[in-house]
């Protein structure tokens, strides 16, 4: 395969791989996430929290993919970039690495969002119990 052909193939394959990895991660976590947000949750908020995960992960993967540039001091034009196969291979690896890193950070950040969701739910239950107790008194 020539470098001219390798560049677009590797570029779009990296993007597609990143989106697929994000979608697979969201699919693996879909069931536990539903369990975490289901019980007595405020309906619309639980739906938002559930639906935001795949979107969030796909955006993070694309952000990681787009954060890598092919230009540097020795490769400042398209002709220089496409002439260097090692550079192209290296950049594809860098894209895969950035996608994985961004996905890991996004997932950990989503864990923090879920903490606040669970907190809101626990606080809501407590308030509901107190109100019921006062009504009984």
């Amino acid at each position, binding site marked *: 395969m020539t470098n001219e052909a390798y560049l677009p193939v590797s570029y779009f394959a990296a993007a597609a791989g990143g989106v697929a990895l994000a979608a697979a991660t969201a699919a693996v976590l879909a069931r536990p996430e539903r*369990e975490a947000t289901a019980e007595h949750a405020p309906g619309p908020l639980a739906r938002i929290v559930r639906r935001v995960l795949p979107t969030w992960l796909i955006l993070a993967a694309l952000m990681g993919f787009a954060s890598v540039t092919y230009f540097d001091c020795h490769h400042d034009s398209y002709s220089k970039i496409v002439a260097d196969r090692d550079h192209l291979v*290296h950049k594809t690896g860098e894209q895969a690495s*950035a996608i994985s890193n961004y996905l890991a950070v996004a997932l*950990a950040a989503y864990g923090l969002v*879920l*903490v606040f969701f*669970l907190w809101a739910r626990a606080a809501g239950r407590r308030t509901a119990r107190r109100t019921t107790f006062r009504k009984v008194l």
Partner: protein
Amino acid sequence: MNGLVAWIALAAAAGALVAVMAGLMRKPMQDLLTANRHMAPAAKFYGRAFVIVISLAALAAVVGADFPCPQQAQEKAFMGWVWWTADGLKPVFWSLSGFLMGYVLLLTILFGILGRYRDE
């Protein structure tokens, strides 16, 4: 060819490290997350997300490893590839320790906020 073997060794070492970390954290994390009924429904999510996060962190470090130029690769002896593998493990350790600390911080926040609620 030697480069591919060295890269596979690097990936295997990173995978083994991830497996050991996941194994060590599994039980205490389950105990922590099932402490009360407010956290319990999310126990599976956090357990699974932890394994995915550290796997992605290790994957990022492994696929980001720099291969030597073809000229240098041909001149490398066995120990040259061992050093290359050890050098490749350095970012794996950094990445895993960073994400591990981050996740422990997340669990601390979770327990700090929800741990004070008691089951009634």
